[in-house]
């Protein structure tokens, strides 16, 4: 039987992805029975959703983007003929 600490560690590190089948079954069973670990997993998911929402507000200034893309275009066209 996996302990809560092991379960929380596997979830936060995503080591469960590489875990052998037996351990993965253990993880699923533990989560089915332990609501604290389910709460932990929910909290991790919320972190991801929160971060996505937060970082979506990081958008480049359109004028800057166009300027950079212009430089890129120029470099790409030069590379082609040069």
């Amino acid at each position, binding site marked *: 039987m996996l302990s809560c600490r092991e379960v929380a560690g596997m979830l*936060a590190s995503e080591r469960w992805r590489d875990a052998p089948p037996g351990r993965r079954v253990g993880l699923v069973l533990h989560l089915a029975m332990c609501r604290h670990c389910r709460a932990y997993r929910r*909290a991790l998911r919320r972190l991801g959703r929160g971060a996505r929402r*937060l970082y979506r507000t990081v958008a*480049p200034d359109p004028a800057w983007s166009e300027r950079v893309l212009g430089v890129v275009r120029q470099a790409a066209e030069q590379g082609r003929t040069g």
Partner: protein
Amino acid sequence: MASSSGDALREPRQRIASIRRRDAGTLEAVARENIEPLLRGARAAGLVGDDAHDVVQETLLVFVEKADRFDGRARVRTWLFGILFNKISERRRASAREEAVDDIESVFNARFDAAGQWLRRPRSPDADLAAREAMTALEECLDGLPARRRTAFVLREVEQLDVQGVCNILQVSRNNLGVLLFRARNALRECLESKGIEGSADAVV
């Protein structure tokens, strides 16, 4: 713009060919699709203002210069992030700021008893981190993370790159990535809880 098919691990073959041919239209399209994610990545790595913008432009120019060497084994976005983080670590080598020693491991362990049972139970949040004060708190907590942990977390959760792609970009083993993610997520959780964000009463048994 809508994100391209989430977990496709490779670029379509035709597109790989156009990139390698250095087709100007394709290169520009790739740059256009990725300029925003790259800027987010630069921010995640701890760069601000002109530094973040400059490194994104440099990255795109290196991409154009080396496009004929794109091997198509990873998605072009993963490749671009690889260039970006190379550029960033070049810059860092000049002004090496060591990551603060932190004790998130012991904070994490203190939540469990000797048998590994929850001692201080995780709070079950009432709602998503949507409220403005929650977002502000999350931003502060993210800013407080050491750059590598924040970068690993953002590449996984925000850019949703696959685990192997993130390993390649950061040049770490899967084990090391696990450690970075473990520390980032637990530090964020602890930080939010300390700000009283993670909801209220956890009516445990």
